[in-house]
Each structure stands twice: as C-alpha cells, then as structure tokens.
C-alpha cells in the first residue's frame, strides 16, 4: 500500500509516467501487437486436448455402412426438390416417417427490412421438417441435433442424404440415451432462427412461425452438416457463431480426434494443420489461419447454420465437406462413420460441455490460445488509454498558471459543463441517426434516386457517416463561449475513458472485435490534440476511422482467403458487407451494427471534435 499512502513515491511514479508517457505508450503499442503476432507461434500455444472425461476415455465403434444408399437418398431428395421448386416437405415427412422417426413440420415467414441482394430474398416463407428419434435407454430429458440445410440449386443434397441415412441407421441402434433430432431447415439461418425460437418459446426478432408440435429434451449439442459432393477431400470445421461466440473447445477436439481416428483430412478456416512451425512459411500459415478466425469472429455474424444455437447455451459447430483437386478422396460412408462416432461420444455426456475453454483462438486445428494468453495483447493496448488519461488528469489537476501584463497570476477557469456536454450529445445524436435512418428512409431514397432499396440503405448509411464529419462541431462555443485549453483536455479525458471502457467491454464479449478496434482507435486516441497539423491528422483520422477499418478488413480477408479482389470488386463487397451487417442485426440480433453506430462511431467523432477544437 506504499503507493497509495506515501506521497513521495506517488509523486515519483506519476512524474515518471507523465514524463515518459509518449515512449511508454509507443512501447505498449508495439508490445501489444508483437504479443498478438506471437500468439500464432507454436511454442507459445497449447496443444488441444480433450478435457471432458465422458468423451475422452470411452471407446466407441463406428459401423455406419450405408454411404451409397445415403447418396441415393440424396439424389432422390434433389429430384423432389427440383420438382417442387423448394423444400419437398411431403416427401421428407414420408421418408422420415418410413425411417421410424416422429416427424413434425414448422412453417415460418419473415419480411426482411430491405431486400437481401446477396441471397435474393425479401419476403421469406418456408417450412422446417424435423424428425425425433426417441431415446430408448433413458428418460427423454436431453437431446442432440443434427441439421442439414435445404439450399436452393444443387447444394447440400448429399448432406440431406447422409442425414437421412444416419437417421435410418441410428434408429436400429439401442444405445441412445439422448433424443436425436434430425432437422432439415429451409432458408438457412432464417429457418434455423424460427426453429430455435419455436423450440425455446422465445421470440426475440418478431418473426412469424407456427409453434412446434413435438419436442425432445434440452438440447446439449448440435452439428450442422454441409456437403455438396459425393466424395470429399477434407472436412472443414466452422466454429464462429453469432456475436463472436464460440462453442466449447471440446467440440473441436472431438471432431479432430475422430478425423484422426478415421483418417480424414480436417481443416479449420480451410487450412490444414502443419508441423513446420520453425520455418517462415509455417509461421505465416499459422498467422493466416489465426487472422482468418479473428476476422470472422470480429464480423459478429454466424458463419454456419450452427451459429444461432450458441445463443441458447447449446454447443454447436458446422462441418463442411470440401472437394478440391487433391487425389485422396473420402467417401460418404466414412463421413457417416465420423458423424456416428461423434454422436455416440456426445451421447455419453453426463452434463453439458463445460470442462474446456470457451474463449480461445486457433492458429491451427491442433493448437489453441486461451483467454489468459491473448488478453494481455489487448491489455497492453488498453493500458495506453489509461496512461493518456492519467497524463491528462495530472495536467488538469495542476493547471499552468499564466502571468498577465499586470503580473497577476491567473488560473484558467475550469470549463463549463456545456462545452463538454454539447459535443457528447451531438456525436451521439449522429450515431442514433446512423442507426435508425438508413432503414427508415429507404423508400424516400428510392423515390428520389435511381437506386434499389438495398443500395439506398447502404448509401444512406455511408452518407450519414460522412456527414457526421462535417457537423458543426464547435456548437458548444455558441452556448459556452470560446473553447479553452482546459476544455479540450477535459473532453479528451472523457473520450479516452469512454473508449477504454467501451473497448474493454467489447473485448470481453468478442475479443477479436475489441482488438481490431483497439488497433486502429487507440493510436488515434493517444495522439490527437488541437495542436497537431490539421490536414495530415484529419487524413490519418479518417483512415483509422471504424468505417475504413471495415473496408481494409474486407480486402485483408479476401487476401487471406487467397481470393484477392480488385478495387472495384472490393468496393462492391464492402457495400454488401454493410447491408449484411444491418440485416444480421435485424434478423438474428447481431450486435455489431448497433455497437458501431451507437457507441464506436460517436466515440470516434469526439476525437474528431478535439482535432478541430477552437
């Protein structure tokens, strides 16, 4: 407690911190970035291991034989899908009933706030079909879900085929202690949302759906299967769910363990685990894998149909079949055996998956970084904000006394509340406008400009965003008189603390998002004063603004996925990403758009305000 009570030591420490503030901040920033890059370096990461005893030591045998028959069912499904021009509900109900399941359907409809041009849908109507295999060995208090989407075109027919094949095979086994629900959902996530809301009797997004007629127990785990070819070269595991939530790491471990056992190539982010960590290419491979995961998590959107399960406390992942030009292929029987093994292990669970980590990053499928290792990277960046705040506080609490001509010392008056409150209120009102206006004013925009609804929404959002920069940021002068030196310091202190709390909370919920925002916003927050060169700083600020961060993230993501785009394509992609973000918020309750519009953008505007302080 010496520091808290001994004034001399305190003074020494504070003196050092204020004197060396700039260098310490620089070091912290570089250390933070270096720490983050170090997370992908194999010696610093941990090897994944199964924590859950119920899934670790028990032996299961996979005997699923009927891959070919499953594929034939898949082709039949495709034919019926083509004939009905959508979900072949009657055929699915009949087929599932023939396999001995309790079959139910659920109808749902949803009108999107504006047309989704990526997936070409506006008024969505559909039906989910699901069959329940009742557990013969135990009371029906718990359930597992296997889902496959009914996609338009020729996609995912094999997935439905394998789902039906597994249903038939599982039905003849006696060891199930949990209900198994086989779900075929239409309109991917919208159908999944309707089904989950129906299953749990909630309605968070105002969607219309008919109530479920039959239920199993509480769902313990779910897998979503996506497969569009008869043979696959590798299976890809997708973990990122809504708002950056991840399933328990044991689910990934389970998948990896069975891939190893059966001998299937497995990837995450489409990247194979490699062993050459000590070479440059090996390290950059790990960095790429991790960065892909970080970007996907930061996008806060579900990257597979499993993404919405996580909100209901259900561990879920998507498994995607990939068919590339590699020579070695895996057939449908093997994929079926893999799923059988995973479900038998999940069937052995005595409690929900909770033993392993929920907060992690994966530089490869065999390696992970837990929260204790990656948080310091963010902590170092956040420390900069606290140091700057401390510096400002010290400056404010010992105001430099000026000597006027008469030789009288004048202590500058402390700034009025109005001069601080005005920018705060104006910035937040701009944020509210950015949040509400784009969707509200789409009709107006379509009437007056030659654009479609979707374009109208996105372009309005960009217009409001840009208009925010040109706002009369010195309005406080009308109310509270000339802005003082003390005034901007107080405003900056408020803004820096605001940013620190905001980023801290974001990083706890979604580390990747918090870290990416910190990476761009923290240096800006640290150096902005009214005395730096205006034009240059304004350019730097715009480059580091949240909107452009998103643009860079889009290009970077394409680069990492090895599908680089031209500027024109990148811009179109950027527009569609914005519209998807707004749709994700309206449809599934993703928090990125409100967070960016209502909190991050106003916070950035405060710094913009400080730059042009008069």
């Amino acid at each position, binding site marked *: 407690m010496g520091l808290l009570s001994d004034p001399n030591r305190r003074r020494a420490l504070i003196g050092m911190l204020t004197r060396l503030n700039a260098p310490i901040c620089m070091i912290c920033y570089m250390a933070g970035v270096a720490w983050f890059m170090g997370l992908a370096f194999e010696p610093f990461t941990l090897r994944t291991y199964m924590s859950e005893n119920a899934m670790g030591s028990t032996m299961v045998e996979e005997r699923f034989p009927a891959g070919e028959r499953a594929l034939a069912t898949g082709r039949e499904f495709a034919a019926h899908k083509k004939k009905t021009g959508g979900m072949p509900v009657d055929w699915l109900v009949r087929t599932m009933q023939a396999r001995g399941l309790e079959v139910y359907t659920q109808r749902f409809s949803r009108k999107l706030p504006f047309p989704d041009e990526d997936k070409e849908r506006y008024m969505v109507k559909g039906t989910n079909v699901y069959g329940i295999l009742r557990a013969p060995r135990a009371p029906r208090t718990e359930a597992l879900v296997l889902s496959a989407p009914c996609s338009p075109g020729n996609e995912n027919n094999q997935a439905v085929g394998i789902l039906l094949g597994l249903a038939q095979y599982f039905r003849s086994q006696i060891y199930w202690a949990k209900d198994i629900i086989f779900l075929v959902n239409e309109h991917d996530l919208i159908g999944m949302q309707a089904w989950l809301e129906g299953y749990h009797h909630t309605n968070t997004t105002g969607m219309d759906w008919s109530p479920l007629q039959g239920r199993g127990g509480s769902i313990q785990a779910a897998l979503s299967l996506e497969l569009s070819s008869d043979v696959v070269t590798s299976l890809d595991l997708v973990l990122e769910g809504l708002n950056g939530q991840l399933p328990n790491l044991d689910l990934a471990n389970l998948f990896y363990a069975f891939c190893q056992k059966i001998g299937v190539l497995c990837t995450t982010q489409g990247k194979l685990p490699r062993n050459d960590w000590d070479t440059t290419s090996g390290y950059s491979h790990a960095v790429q894998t991790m960065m892909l995961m970080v970007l996907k998590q930061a996008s806060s959107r579900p990257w597979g149909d499993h993404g919405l399960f996580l*909100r209901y406390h259900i561990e879920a992942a998507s498994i995607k079949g990939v068919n590339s030009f590699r020579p070695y292929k895996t057939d449908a029987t093997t994929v079926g055996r893999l799923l059988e093994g995973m479900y038998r292990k999940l069937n052995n669970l005595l409690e929900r998956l909770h033993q392993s980590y929920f907060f992690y990053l994966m530089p490869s499928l065999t390696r992970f970084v837990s929260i204790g290792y990656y948080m310091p990277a963010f902590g170092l960046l956040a420390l900069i904000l606290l140091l700057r705040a401390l510096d400002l506080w010290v400056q404010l609490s010992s105001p430099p006394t000026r000597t006027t001509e008469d030789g009288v010392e004048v202590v500058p008056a402390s700034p009025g509340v109005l001069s601080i409150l005005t920018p705060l209120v104006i910035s937040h009102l701009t944020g509210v406008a950015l949040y509400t206006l784009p969707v509200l004013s789409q009709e107006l925009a379509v009437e007056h400009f030659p654009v479609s609804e979707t374009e109208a929404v996105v372009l309005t959002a960009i217009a409001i965003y840009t208009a925010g920069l040109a706002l009369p940021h010195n309005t406080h002068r009308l109310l509270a008189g000339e802005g003082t030196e003390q005034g901007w310091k107080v405003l900056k202190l408020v803004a820096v603390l605001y940013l620190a709390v905001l980023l801290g909370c974001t990083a706890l*919920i979604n580390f990747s998002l918090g870290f990416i925002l910190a990476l761009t916003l923290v240096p800006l927050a640290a150096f902005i004063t009214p005395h730096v060169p205006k034009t240059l700083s304004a350019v730097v600020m715009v480059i580091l603004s949240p909107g452009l961060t998103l643009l860079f993230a889009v290009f970077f993501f394409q680069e990492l996925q090895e599908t680089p785009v031209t500027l024109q394509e990148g811009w179109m992609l950027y527009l569609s990403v914005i519209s998807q973000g707004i749709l994700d918020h309206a449809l599934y309750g993703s928090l990125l758009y409100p967070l960016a519009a209502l909190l991050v953008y106003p916070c950035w505007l405060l710094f913009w305000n400080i730059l042009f302080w008069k």
Partner: protein
Amino acid sequence: MAAPLALLLIVAVTIRAALFRTSLANLISERVEVVSPLNAWKRVVEGLALLDLDISPYSGDVFHETPMVIYLFHFLMDYAEITFMGAGVKFSSLHLVSQFRKQKFALEADRIPMDCLELIRSPTEMYYIPLKVAMFYLLNPFTIVSCVAKCTCGLNNAVIALFILSTMRGSALLSAIFLALATYQSIYPLTLCVPALLYLLQRLYIPVNVRRSSFWFYTLQYLFMFLGSLLVLICLSFFLLGSWDFLPAVYGFILSVPDLTPNIGLFWYFFAEMFDHFRLFFLCVFQINVFFYTLPLSIKLKEHPVFLIFMQIALIAIFKSYPTVGDLSLYMAFLPVWNHLYRFLRNIFLVSCVLLACSALFPVLWHLWIYAGSANSNFYYAITLLFSVAQILLVSDYFYAFLRREHHLTNGLYLKKKDGSEATLVLK
C-alpha cells in the same frame, strides 16, 4: 436557488417518467445490481397479492419487506410510480434544507483557525452545496435506475434523509423516530444512533464525559425515545398482521443471508462456496463488519458527527448483506458536502475510473455468465470485489482527507520540516 432547484426537479422527474414508459424499465427491474431480494418490486407485488387473499405475505419465502411497507403500498398501489418519484423528490428537497444546517455547522467549525484561510469555504461556495447534493442524488444514474426499477430502497433512503434532516435541526424526538423507522426497515441504520447522539449533544454543548450526569441523562433520554418508537413500530406491525411472522422473514432474512442471488455485495459468492459448518462463524464475521467500525470511528470523529454519519452510511452500503446501487447513491449524494476535502484526496482518479469500469462490466459479465454461458460466477465476483475495493478506497480516502484537513487547520497549511524544507505527511 429555487429556480435551479425547480428546473432540476423537472429534469429528474422527466427522465424517470420517460424511462418508465420505455421497455428499459422491465429490463432494469430484473437487474441484480439494482434490486435485491429484499426490495424488489416484483416481490412487493407478490406480497400484496397474498395479503389480498388473506394469506400471510411472509408465507412462501418471497416477500421480505416490513409490514408497514406492504400496508403503505396496499393503499398506494395504483400510484406506485408516483410514490417512487415522490420518494426521490422528497429526498432531495429534504436534503436541501438539511444542507443549510450543515453549512452553518461547517462555518462554525471553520471559524477557529486563522492562519489557513484557503481551507475555509467561502459562503458563496456553501450556498450551492444543497443544490449540488440534490443534483448528485437526482441525476445520479444509480438513483435513476433504482427508481425506474421501483426498488423500495428509495423509500429507505428517504427515511434516512428525513432522519438526517431532523437531527440537523436538533429535534431529538423526530430524529429518534426516523432513526427507529430506518432501523425498522433494515436493521443496519442502528449504527447511526451514535453520530446522531453525538451531534445532538454537541448542539446542546454537553461534553461527552462519562462522569457528567447531564451526558448520561441526555443519552438515556435519546435511547429511550429511539427504542420506544422502535417498539411501537414493531408492535404496530404485529397488530396489523396478527402474527410475528415478519420478524424471521425480514430481520432473520437480513442477518442470516439465506438468499445467495448474486448482487454487488460481498456475501453471495463467499457463502455459496462455503461448507455449512463454517457458515455461522463467517456470518457473524461478515455482519460484525458493519457494526464494528462504529466504535473506533466514533472515538476518532467525536467532534465531527456529520462526517461520521457519512462514513457510517457508506460503510453500511458496502458491507450490508443485500446491497444495491440505490444504497450507493445515498452516500454518493453526500460527496459535494465534502468538496472542500477535494484537494487532499489522493486516489480519486483511480477510484472513479474503477467505479466507472465496474459499472459497465457488471452487465457485460452477467451476460457472459448467464446468457452466453461462456464465463462463470468467478468473473462476476471479481468485478464485485473490485467494485467494493474501489468503494472502500473512496471512503478511506475521504476519511484521510478529512483528518489531514483537520491537521492542517491546527498546524497551518504549509508545513515545514525543522531544516526549512517542505514537509510531507505520510500515513502509516
């Protein structure tokens, strides 16, 4: 003075009325930081329903308010919102008057030393203190959420404010009655008995001296009034309900802490983790915490009972078994009274940063623990601990600043060492 106050009241009432109309009100009234099992509005409604059915409201372990409160709401049910607003507003207006007294007191206290004019507050500064107090209470986000959640701790705060007001006015009878009422509501204000007594004695120029009969006479008189009115209140409750059910349901519930719903206090996690055979011992240790500091503080601060009241209220808010943010806002409203201590505060920046961060982290970690399922109770308790540490640091900082100011008042502001260099005060 009246105009800004009226404006403030209008703003405060508008904010509350607006929030009552939004969907936020429901969300806020479910937050564990804002309502505790002791004062949740939902439970009051439940108790009222039971009362209407002629069932004892205390059957079923849901309702833990005192009988007076339930009868109060029995008659005011339809005007509940207005009542809560009224409680808040009443509080402020009461404070306003009480502060005038406090000013005079402070002025008198400051008249003694002549060499440190800097330390003495100018009358113009003092003039605005009541307004600031009212502002700190009415516009404090903690008070607002507490009021919007219809948390009954607003009523308790109003009663304590009335008690302080009547004490400052020197009316021993009213002071004793309101103290009894506050104690009747939630036991802990019992500790405020000592500062009130000290203040009243000081007003009458009776020295605190055990050998003086006038001291004993006055003390016994005050205690008699206090205990008498407490007895009347309890008997009245008995006659209202016709049973003694409320004693275990209210006071037993407060003291033995059977409900371990997470809150911003220190009890829940500790007692959830503990083996049963240690429970009684640690229960005593934790509960003694609230009462224990009264004695040393009263000895140290016997000349300054008003500051002692502030310290006691803060300690109660930190160490009570079911604290809510409403309790916090009560002692935070007193901070402007001590703004002359500001220059001696050392950790105010650290403390305010921690309090700010914790207030934001409470809902975030609650979301991660309860809804996302990815964090667990340890995360939440860590923030609770940090929050309590920050509060304790705040209170002890004010205590230190107060003592230091006293020191400077007697010894001069700019202390010199024997060799002429500037001296520093070290707290050891």
